[in-house]
């Protein structure tokens, strides 16, 4: 995977990131197990997965906010530096000014006893040596920018005087205070109503465009991910099991978990007279992973091999990768969507890697039918990049 060097230098590169916690019995659990990811400059990466998949811990590890006895290993490369090797004093300056986070619950991310102006000003002063007065007026500007009406007056309000959506705007203003390159948004709209959610996502998008931010959006909501992101990474049991550009991903999924997850979503187009194709069973706990593929016990396509052999990521070309023993065959069934047709998945996005779809062309190794039509799966790939 490290061999695949993207055309544009990523602003953040994560290699072999693991998070471990000791357990009482003297053992350890590893809820994040060797995550690799690249966030392109100006890119919008969606890290999707269910609770317990390790996505929030990944975010905290990127911010270096995992506290002992938790241990983080791997490399977090930003501006040629490994953030994991920075002394905490330097990391404090990185946090906010280079990499900032928008948290899920705005009420607990804000201090109830200080005015929001004071809290934003504090974030401004953490990043830049400016006077209190300057920081205060910057706070008003930021509030204005995130769409808080009457910012000059509201700056002296307390968090409880704001609605949930307005509070989340305040949290976004705080994240912007240090003019970071990278914003990690961890379920930023999960606590919000659907109409408010739509507005906050829209705001995040326009701010990202205006400031050239690179955003990593962590969400369990595939609809939100489809709306906002350029690239999708699916996390399961502490690993990224599939990655693809957003059109390729929603066109079809190679990893059986990604496919099952998507088809289990009860959307507005669900057939009401039929059961929803649910994923059987429960996700595994970090201390209790099955041998072999961690999805095998729930996978309807699993074989005996899946139960003993640990899969490694398979590069399928066009920026797609899946961690499944049968990734190549499964991708072969959708060959039309993988760059073979005129639709050409990799063309989407801003200068994404245009790798040759090597393995996507390989003939299937098993007796599965290679001639299954891709059935319009490639249609989506040609659309898009028309985001306003």
């Amino acid at each position, binding site marked *: 995977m490290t061999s695949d060097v993207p055309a544009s230098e990523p602003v953040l590169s994560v290699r072999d990131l693991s998070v471990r916690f000791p357990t009482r019995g003297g053992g350890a659990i590893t809820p994040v197990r060797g995550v690799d990811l690249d966030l392109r400059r100006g890119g919008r990466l969606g890290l999707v997965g*269910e*609770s317990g998949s390790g996505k929030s811990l990944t975010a905290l590890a990127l911010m270096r906010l995992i506290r002992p006895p938790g241990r983080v290993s791997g490399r977090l490369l930003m501006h040629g530096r490994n953030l994991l090797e920075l002394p905490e004093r330097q990391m404090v300056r990185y946090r906010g000014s280079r990499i900032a986070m928008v948290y899920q619950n705005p009420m607990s991310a804000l201090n109830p006893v200080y005015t929001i102006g004071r809290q934003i000003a504090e974030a401004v002063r953490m990043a830049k040596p400016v006077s209190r007065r300057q920081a205060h007026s910057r706070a008003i500007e930021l509030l204005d920018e995130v769409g808080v009406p009457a910012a000059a007056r509201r700056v002296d309000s307390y968090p409880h005087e704001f609605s*949930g959506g307005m509070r989340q705007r305040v949290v976004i203003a705080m994240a912007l205070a240090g003019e970071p390159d990278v914003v990690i948004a961890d379920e930023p709209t999960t606590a919000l*109503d*659907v*109409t*408010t*959610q*739509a507005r906050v*996502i*829209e705001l995040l*998008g326009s701010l990202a465009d205006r400031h050239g931010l690179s955003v990593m959006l962590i969400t*369990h*909501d*595939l*609809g*939100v*991910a*489809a*709306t*906002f*992101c350029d690239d999708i990474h699916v996390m399961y049991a502490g690993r990224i099991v599939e990655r693809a550009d*957003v*059109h390729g991903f*929603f066109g079809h999924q190679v990893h059986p978990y990604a496919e*099952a*997850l*998507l088809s*289990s*979503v*009860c*959307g*507005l187009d*669900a057939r*009401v007279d039929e*059961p*929803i*194709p*649910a*994923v*059987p069973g*429960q*996700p595994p706990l970090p201390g209790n992973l099955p041998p072999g593929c961690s999805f095998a016990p729930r996978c309807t396509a699993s074989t005996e091999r899946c139960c003993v052999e640990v899969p490694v990521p398979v590069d399928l070309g066009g920026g797609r990768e899946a961690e499944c023993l049968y990734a190549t065959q499964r991708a072969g069934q959708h060959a039309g969507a993988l760059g073979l047709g005129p639709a050409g998945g990799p063309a989407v996005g801003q200068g994404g890697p245009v790798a040759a779809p090597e393995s996507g062309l390989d003939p299937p190794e098993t007796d599965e039918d290679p001639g299954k039509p891709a059935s319009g799966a490639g*249609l*989506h790939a040609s*659309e*898009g990049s*028309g*985001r*306003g």
Partner: protein
Amino acid sequence: MAESLVVAEHLVRHFPDPSGKDVVRAVDDVSFEIRPGETFGLVGESGSGKSTVSRLLLGLDQPTRGLVRFDGIEISGMSQRRLRPLRRQMQMVFQDPHASLNRRKTVAQIIGLPLAVHSGLSRSERDRRVRQLLDLVGLRPEFASRYPHEMSGGQCQRVGIARAIALEPRLVILDEAVSAVDVSVQAQILNLLKDLQRQLGLTYVFVSHDLALVRYMSDRIGVLYHGQLVELADRHELFAEPRHEYTRSLLAAVPVADPGRRATRV
């Protein structure tokens, strides 16, 4: 058409404003009927009054004005004692699967409690019924001796459902019953709820902020906005031709897992 199981007539519920000067009109003149065997969906955002309506339907709260009839009997203003025999016919499944179960009790005790309170079953009969119920909600018999913290959110929600249907109620109110469980498990629970409805002839009130879930589950849907029922229609009608502006904005805000449609969105 069969007679309505539940009738809500001009329900009003006001709460005192924190300042003490004004009132919060949590529910503001809401009327609807629920037919036996159907799923009545109530959709709205936080603060729209959907939980207050649910509580009024169950007689857990009293309306400021208006009334609720259950099976022809007016339950509004009824004393808790007189309400009790009716209680077994109406049950509720709550949002937070862990918080709604007593963590000091085993699954068998949790599901067995309504049986102990309302049914004349002996202990061994209750145990047998608990096992039946576990089977019905798709949990293996060994779950009977487990505690809530030993189970996942989806498993806890199955226990909550087993408890709700233990007394063979006629009405089950599902208040954001799948909002807190993961997507892959959510589908399992929705399928289970539909199966149980078919098998047991249950009437559901499906309360949710998620329009897609309400659509999937409900035969008829009421849209609540600021305490008022701004639209009430059959599922098909509501989605084919939403009349109220709020319904339309609610529909437009639902994120769709299709990036091809987002040019018009973000």
